Each structure stands twice: as structure tokens, then as C-alpha cells.
């Protein structure tokens, strides 16, 4: 069964990049949901408990990545779905802040399709032995 992913980013260009990345190699055939701001992303997250992974941009209008993570924690929404925070900010403080807010992993721009493949593989590995 193909895996489903959610991409939350306000840049249309990034959505196209994710489409390219999710169309190749082991990821071909994946279902990708797109949201252009945190609010939309949160709604899609709530609607799709089957998601294998969420790729979440940090800087966005209408609820940024950290705000989405905070709300998800408060409402304990689908805690089994790993969320990867994607950002251009590279400082260790930023990364720590993201992880503290509940991000499962941290992906730095610029990334390449292979990086997406890697992070997805790790997420699926993590999910496989655990309870569903």
C-alpha cells in the first residue's frame, strides 16, 4: 500500500520540489497532501491519521511550524505521526527549539530528493515494529 505524506509550506515552488522528490525511486506512487499554511496543515493532519510523515516548514504565515507543533501537542493530535521540521535556519538553538516543540526530526534547506528518501526511510523503520 502506498504511503501518504503531508507537506506544509507556503512556497508553491517547494510543493513542486516535493512532488518531484516523491515521484522518484522508492517513493514513487506515494500520496502527497499539500497545505500552504499551518492552519491548513493542521486541518489535513487531523483528517489523515494514516500519514506516514509530515514535512513542516518553519516560517509560514497563518500559524508557523512551531505554532502548529505546539497546538498538536496541546490537543494530542495523532502523536504517532512523525513531523519533520524543514527550515533554512541552521543554528543548534533553532534545532533544539524545534525538537523541544515536538519535532521528530530536523531537515535543513537546501535538501535534495535523496535527503527526503532517507528521512522517509527512517520514519517508516521507526513505525514498523511499533504498535499501530
Amino acid at each position, binding site marked *: 500500500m502506498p504511503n501518504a505524506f503531508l507537506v506544509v509550506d507556503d512556497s508553491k*515552488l517547494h510543493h513542486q520540489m516535493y512532488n518531484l522528490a516523491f515521484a522518484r525511486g522508492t517513493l514513487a506512487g506515494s500520496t502527497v497532501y499539500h497545505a500552504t499554511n499551518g492552519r491548513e496543515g493542521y486541518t489535513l493532519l487531523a483528517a489523515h491519521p494514516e500519514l506516514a510523515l509530515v514535512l513542516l516548514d518553519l516560517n509560514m504565515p497563518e500559524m*508557523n511550524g512551531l505554532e502548529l507543533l505546539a497546538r498538536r501537542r496541546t490537543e494530542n493530535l495523532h502523536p504517532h505521526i512523525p513531523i519533520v521540521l524543514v527550515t533554512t535556519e541552521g543554528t543548534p538553538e533553532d534545532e533544539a527549539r524545534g525538537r523541544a516543540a515536538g519535532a521528530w526530526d530536523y531537515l535543513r534547506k537546501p535538501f535534495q530528493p535523496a535527503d527526503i528518501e532517507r528521512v522517509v526511510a527512517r520514519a517508516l523503520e521507526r513505525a514498523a515494529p511499533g504498535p499501530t
Partner: protein
Amino acid sequence: MAADENAFSELIQDYIVECLPLAEQVGDAFVALERRWKEGDPGDNTLAALAGPLHTVKGNSAMMGIAPAQTVAHALEDICALLTAEPRLRGDEGAALLVSGSGMLIDLVRRAAGGAQPEAAAEFAEQARAFITSAQTGAAASESAGESTERRAGDRRITSRREEAASEPGSVVRVDFRRLDALLEVLGEGMIEQSAVIELYRRLARKVGPSDEVADLDRALLALQKTIKRMEGILMETRLLPASSVFNRFPRLVRDLAHAAKKPVRLVTSGGATPLDKAILDRLGEPLIHLLTNAVVHGIESPEERARAGKPAEATLDLRATSESGRVVIRLSDDGRGLDDASILAKAEALGLEVRASDPEQLRALIFLPGFSTVKEVSSLAGRGVGLDVVATSIRELGGTIEVSSRPGQGVSFTLSLPLTLAILRSLIVEVDRERYAVPLSHVTATVRTEPDTMHQINQKGVALWRGDLIHVADAGELLGTGAPPNGSRRFYVVIGTGARRRGILVDRLIGHQDIVVKSLDPTVGRPEVVSGTTILGDGKVACILDVVRILDQRVPV
């Protein structure tokens, strides 16, 4: 460049489409900020609102492997962060850096597909670093001197949210403009074929007389006409863009010009939402840049001269667009010294032109003539001659008109009137010596039947009394060089005009109104000067389109 090795390089056009408006938004805002800081307004909200767009450009450039754009965007972010934290640093030096850096960023994004020069970007990053370092050293010094400053300079990120949501409704698609051009072309063919069918229908109806079938055909054709009309309307709408897409480039231009000329100038634009066909907008930038340059360089006085005239040191350029009865009017006014009528008159006399000094409008229209420009006297003419014939020609090629008005000591105002679209022209079809011609309806003021006692001859030139005014009436056959001498067949004259200028053209018959599809002329083919293009009429015959503006421009000796 690196973009070639990048896995996302096929998205380069999408990158430009997304990032160029953002870079331009940032650039415009910096130009505006520079002004506000001069006026003592800290502009906190503007600075904060730019964090989002800058960040997106930086991130996207990084993803595409376009390092120079990433470097410049990053340096701009750093300067913004510093200036956000240190309001006292908001001044000329910082503003100049932001303006030049964002100009570079716009350029880098625009030319991303062609590769960029990393040297300039690195140089700018170096300047930014130097500015930040010296500012921080200064801050440390003043802090140690006991002054309290907010300690946020170390936090590079501006965390406030974007004012503008970048999201759009999902029902928007991007289309290559050439496809819209192709669609218009096909629609044009359809319109020509439609008129052919209607022409045939009329002949058929005359031949067979009234019948149910003829009546049905009549109804069906009417429905078809309506549908094609609607199709045209929708297609035209999809080709429209707001005038602001051109106007937006100008604040930066005026700022740079004013800087270079050492004259404080404020550009005020309005009517940016006024829609215009993209094909026209694309060709409107150049002439407007020409006019703006002229205004700043020549029209506006030095601050000293303005002070002597009791004017505010800062000059105002007012650029506005409005929609007026199916056309778009763009007006550029300055509050400079105005045209020097005496010099224009002297120049006209030197060139052997016949002008009435008492008619300032006629006099000022001369500045659009070729030859009025390139000469030395340019500066004594308040510099108004520079390339204005070029401007007038490009506006005319767009089917537009340009007029100038001037009040000595108070400024000059140029008024451009443009059609909404280039391709389809509402026209009056007339017949002259058994040939048909199209007269653009936008310039037709009236059609008049020639009565024996309304036409007069003054100095062998025809004049007519029209609505209480004497207007010149020329013979169409003579204008077009049809060779056939006027033989009393001219039973109508068409009054054409722009602004206050009117002129009559004698024709044989009025055929009716028709939407015609403009076909451009092969430039290698000779043609009368007063023809601007051709079209194909319902009967398949080619008809010439009269160049009304050129006819009006022909000087009539009095």
C-alpha cells in the same frame, strides 16, 4: 552553474515566477523605507513585513543552488535584523545598502536561468558585513558609555509574521502568454470567417427572399455573433494585467534618477489597479521611463531654483492611470519649470516650421516631432526635446495618443491615451473610390453628410463649419493617393479627433461599424503614410486601416 547539477533545475521558471515578485516587493519597500527614514518615520511594520519574503527568496535560492541570490538575500536579512534591533541605525547608509542589495537581488532572480555573477554578490555580502560590524562596534562603544540599547542584535531572525498571505485560491493556473496570443489569433480568424458567412447570408437572403429558413438562419447567425462577442470579452479579460505591474518598477527608478541629479523627488502613483492588455503593458515601460527621466533630469528645477520660485525643495511626480470610456489614460505630471514656449517657437522658426505663436497647444505639440530632439538647443528648451519623438512613435504604434500641456513655472503634464487591446479594433468602415477603409471608432467624433452650403474653400483648403467651429476637411482620396480626382462623389465627411484637435475626412459612403482584426503590415511593402495596418473584411477583401493620429498630425498651413 550549480543550478544545472541541481535535482530541481527543471523548476527554474517556477522559481523565477515565485521569487521575482517577492524580490520586487522587498526592493520597492526598501525604496519607500529610505524616504520614510529621511522623514523621521521608523517604519517598524515595513521592516518586519519584509522578513517573510526575504526568507522565502533565500530558502528557494538555496534549494535551486543559486548561491549568489542566496548570499544577497541572507546579507539583506542580516541588515534588516540589525536595523530592527537598532532603530537609531536607520538612516542613509543602511538604506542605501538595502536599496542597492535588493536591486541586485531582483536582477539575480530575474536572470537566474542564465547564470549569475557570484563576484558582485560576494562583494555586497562583504559591504553588509562591514556595515554590521562597524554598527555593532559603535553600539558596544555607546553601551559602555552608559547608553542603554536593546540587546537583540545577536538574534538574526525577525520573527514577526508576514502581512501578506502567499496562498492563492487553488483554481488559478499559469499559462504561457503566447498561448493567449495564439488563441486571440484564432479568434480573429473566426471573426473574419464569421463576417464572410454574414455577407453570404445577406446576398442569399436578397436572392431567395423571405422564408422560414432565412429567418432561422438570421437567428442562428445572431446567436453566433453574440457568442463570439462573449468569447472575445472573456479572452480580453484574461489578457489584462494591472497597470501597477509596470508602475511598480518606477519608485526605484525615480529614486536612482533623483539621487544622480541631486534633486529630491517624490513619485506618487495612483490607479495601479487599472487593467490593460499585457501586450500593451509590455511596451509601455520604455516610453514611460523616458518621460520620467526627462521630468527628473530636465523638467524639475534644482533645489536652489525651486527655493527662489517659492516651491517646496522636494518635487512631486504624479503618475496616474484611469479608465475612460473604453480606453486607458495615463497621465504623468511634474511640478517643475514647465515648457519654455519662447524657445520652442524660436526653434520652430529656425527649422522653418509655420506655427502660430498664439496657439500654445499647437506650439507644444511640436516637441514630439523628430529633429526637435537631437539638437544642441535641447537644454535651452528645458530639455524637453530629448527623444520625445521616440516616445510619441511608440505610443502611436500602440494605437495610442500622447498630448502635452504645460503651465510656465508650474510644470508639465503628459497625457497618454491607450486602447485596452491591440488586436481587435472597433472601426467605422468607409468607402473611398470603390475601396473600403477602416477608421478606428475610438477616434471618430461624428459623421456628417456634406451639404453644398456647409463646405468652404479657404486658401484652396477645404473647411467646414461643424458645431460652430471651422475644421479642416481633407479629401480621403488625396490623403491616400488613390489617384482618382474628387468628382463630387464625396457625400460624407468623418470628423476624427484626439483631445482638442479635430479634422474632417471626405469619403464616398459609410458602410457601418465592425470589429476588425488588425493584421500588421509587411514593413518592406510601400504604403501610404496615413495607413497603420490592414484587415480582412467579410467579403475576403483586404482593407487598409487609417492612421488617424498621423492624419491629425499632418500640418495644415493656415
